[in-house]
C-alpha cells in the first residue's frame, strides 16, 4: 500500500518511463478508438479502460515472459500493457483479417495464446477460473510461471470468483487475482451489490493473502504486484490484490454514465492514473518536457500507423469462413 519500491530503493528511470509509456498508450488507444467507433469504423461493443490504466500498467510491468494473464470484458488495457501489437489490436476492432483473431473475436475476445494472454472475455468473471487453470497447468508442468487474472468488483459476486480462488488456495497455485474495483457492475454501484465494499476481505475469508492498493497509482500497483509475484514464484501463492479505481465514463461507449455522481468522478479525475504516471516520471527521473513530448508523439504516431495498417487490411472472405466452419 505504498508508493515505495519493494526493496526501498527509488524506482529507476527505466521503470518510470515504462509505466508512463504503457498508461499513455492505453489512454491514446481508448480515446482514439472511441473516435473510430463514433465514425462507425468499429462496430459491436467497446468497453473503454479510461481511468483504470494504472492497474494493467503496474501489474504487467511486474511480470515476465512465460507468465500468463487473463483479462476482463474491458480488456484493451490489459492487452496493451502485456505488450500487444497495436496494429493487430486495431485491426481486430476493425474486423480485419490481420487482427489478433482475424475478425472472429472482436473487442471482447482479443487473445494471444502464444504470448500467454488467455484473452478478454464476454462473460463477466470467466477469466478467474481460466486463469487458475493456467496456474494449475504451470504447477503440473513444474514451471515457475505466474498467472494473473484481472477481474472486477462486478465479477466478485459471481460464484466462480470464490470457487476458483479457493481452488488456487488449496493447491497453493502461483496465481494473483487482481480485482479492479471500479465501483460499478455495469451501472449498479458497489454499495448496492455487496455489504462489504472492501473486496480484498473476500480473499482473507478463505485464507488467501490479500491486499488493497490505489489502482490509479501505477507505481504502487507495480510494487505490490512485484511482491505478490515473487511470493508466488516461491510457492507462497495465491495472492489477491484489490485495486480501487473509477471509470471515466459509462460502461461502454454508448452508455453516458449518468448514474456516476459528478463530484465522485471529479475526485478520481483529479487522481488520473496517466497524469500521475507522467508526474512520477517527471518528478523522480529528471526527464525534461521535450522527452515527454517525444514519447507522447511516438505513441500517437504508432496508433495512427495502426489505423492506416488496419484500413489497408482485408477481411476474412466468406469462402475462407465456410472452410473454417467445415471443421465444426
Amino acid at each position, binding site marked *: 500500500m505504498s508508493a515505495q519500491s519493494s526493496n526501498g530503493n527509488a524506482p529507476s528511470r527505466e521503470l518510470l518511463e515504462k509505466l508512463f509509456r504503457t498508461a499513455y498508450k492505453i489512454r491514446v488507444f481508448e480515446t482514439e478508438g472511441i473516435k473510430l467507433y463514433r465514425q462507425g469504423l468499429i462496430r459491436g461493443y467497446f468497453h473503454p479502460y479510461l481511468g483504470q490504466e494504472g492497474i494493467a500498467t503496474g501489474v504487467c510491468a511486474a511480470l515476465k515472459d512465460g507468465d*500468463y494473464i*487473463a483479462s476482463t470484458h474491458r480488456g484493451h488495457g490489459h492487452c496493451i500493457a502485456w505488450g500487444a501489437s497495436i496494429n493487430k489490436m486495431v485491426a481486430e476492432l476493425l474486423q480485419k483479417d490481420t*487482427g*489478433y*483473431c*482475424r*475478425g*472472429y*473475436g472482436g473487442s471482447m*475476445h482479443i*487473445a494471444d*495464446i*502464444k504470448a500467454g494472454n*488467455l*484473452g478478454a*472475455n*464476454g*462473460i463477466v468473471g*470467466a477469466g*478467474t*477460473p*481460466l*486463469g*487458475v*487453470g*493456467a496456474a*494449475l*497447468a*504451470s*504447477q*503440473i*508442468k513444474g514451471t515457475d510461471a505466474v*498467472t494473473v487474472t484481472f477481474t472486477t468488483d462486478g465479477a466478485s459476486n459471481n*460464484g*466462480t470468483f470464490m*470457487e*476458483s480462488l*479457493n*481452488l488456487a488456495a*488449496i*493447491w497453493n497455485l502461483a496465481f494473483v487475482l487482481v480485482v479492479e474495483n471500479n465501483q460499478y457492475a455495469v451501472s449498479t454501484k458497489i454499495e448496492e451489490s455487496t455489504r462489504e465494499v472492501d473486496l480484498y476481505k473476500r480473499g482473507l475469508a478463505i485464507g488467501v493473502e490479500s491486499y488493497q492498493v490505489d489502482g490509479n497509482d501505477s507505481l504502487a500497483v507495480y510494487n505490490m504486484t512485484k511482491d505478490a509475484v515473487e511470493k508466488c514464484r516461491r510457492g507462497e501463492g495465491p495472492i489477491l490484490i484489490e485495486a480501487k479505481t473509477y471509470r471515466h465514463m459509462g460502461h461502454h461507449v454508448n452508455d453516458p454514465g449518468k448514474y456516476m455522481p459528478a463530484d465522485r468522478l471529479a475526485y478520481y479525475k483529479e487522481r488520473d492514473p496517466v497524469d500521475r504516471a507522467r508526474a512520477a516520471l517527471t518528478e523522480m527521473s529528471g526527464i525534461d518536457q521535450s522527452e515527454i513530448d517525444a514519447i507522447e508523439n511516438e505513441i500517437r504516431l504508432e496508433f495512427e500507423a495502426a489505423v492506416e495498417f488496419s484500413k489497408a487490411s482485408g477481411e476474412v472472405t466468406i469462402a475462407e469462413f465456410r472452410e*473454417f466452419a467445415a471443421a*465444426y
Partner: protein
Amino acid sequence: MYRDALREAIDEEMERDSSVFIIGEGIAERGGSYKVTEGLLDKYGANRVRDTPIAEAGMIGVGVGAAIAGARPIVEILYVDFAMLGMDMLVNQAAKFRLMTGGDGRVPFVMRTQGGTGGGVAAQHSQSLEALFYHIPGLQVVMPSVPADAKGLLKYALRQQDPVMFLEHKHLYMTKGMVPDGEHVIEFGKGDIKRPGKDVTIIAWSNMIPRALEAAAKLAEEGIDAEVLDPRTLVPLDKAMILTSVAKTNRVVIAQEAVRRGGVASDIASIIQAEAFYDLDAPIEIVAGLNIPVPFNLELEKASVPQVDDIVVAARRTLHAKSFALAAE
C-alpha cells in the same frame, strides 16, 4: 469391464503424456464413485490426480483454462446433471475459444461424466443430456456403449485439440466385453455396426445399445433381421455408416434414452429424410424417453425411458408399413 477399460485408457495416456492430469470429486484416494480412477493416485501422485471441492463451475473452468495453457485435463463430473453448474465454461468458453481466437486457440479438454437412469436415483441424478452438448458447435460428444469403445475413444479424446464431452452411462460401468490387446485407439466419427442385418436399421448409443441388441435377438425369432448401428460419437456423426445401412434396409428405428423433445434422434431422423428420403419404405420410428423428468419410483422410472419391447414394437411397425406397400403393388 467398462470401468476397467476407462481406467486403462487414462492410465496409458497418463503414462504416454505427462501433461495429462485428472481432477474431480473423490477421484484420488477414493478412486471415484464408479472406481474408474482407482490406483491412479498411487501411480501418478497428487500432482496429477487431485480431488476437488464440490464446485463444478470452478473445476470445469479451471480445466478449460489449463487446456488453453497447454495441459491435458480430464475433469470428472460425478453426474452429467451436475455439469449444468459449469455450462458457461463449456458453452461460452471451451466451445467458442477456437473460433473467437480466429482458429489459434485450442482447448484440449476432456470432461468425463455419466448420465442415464440407474435404479432410483431420481430426477437430478438420472438425466441423459447429450442433446444440450450436441447443440453447441465446438463440442465433440462421445457416448461409448461397450468396454472396447470406452477405452479406444477415451484414448483418442486425450489426443484431441478440441473439447470432448465424454458421456458414460451409470448402468454400463460393470458390463463386460472384450478389449483388444495392445494400443487401441478409436477415431471419432467412425460408427460401429454392432449387429449386421438386412431388414431394419436400429440406431442407438450408450445404454440403448444393449437394449437394441436384445430387441434384435427377439426380432430374429420373428424372422426379422435387424442391423444395430452405434455411432459411438454423436459429434462428429458417422453419416456415411447410417446412410449406407438405410440404403440396404429401407427402414429405421432410432432409440435414445433422452427425452424425445429436441433430441439427437430427431436430428438424425432429419438428416436421413433429407439425404435418403427415397431409400425409406416406412416412416422413421423414434423410441425415446418421455418428455418428463425422471421419477424416483422404480416402475415409473422404467416407464419413463425406452425398454427392449419398445424397440421391438417400433421395428415391427416399420415392417408393417412395408407389407402394406407390397399389398398395394
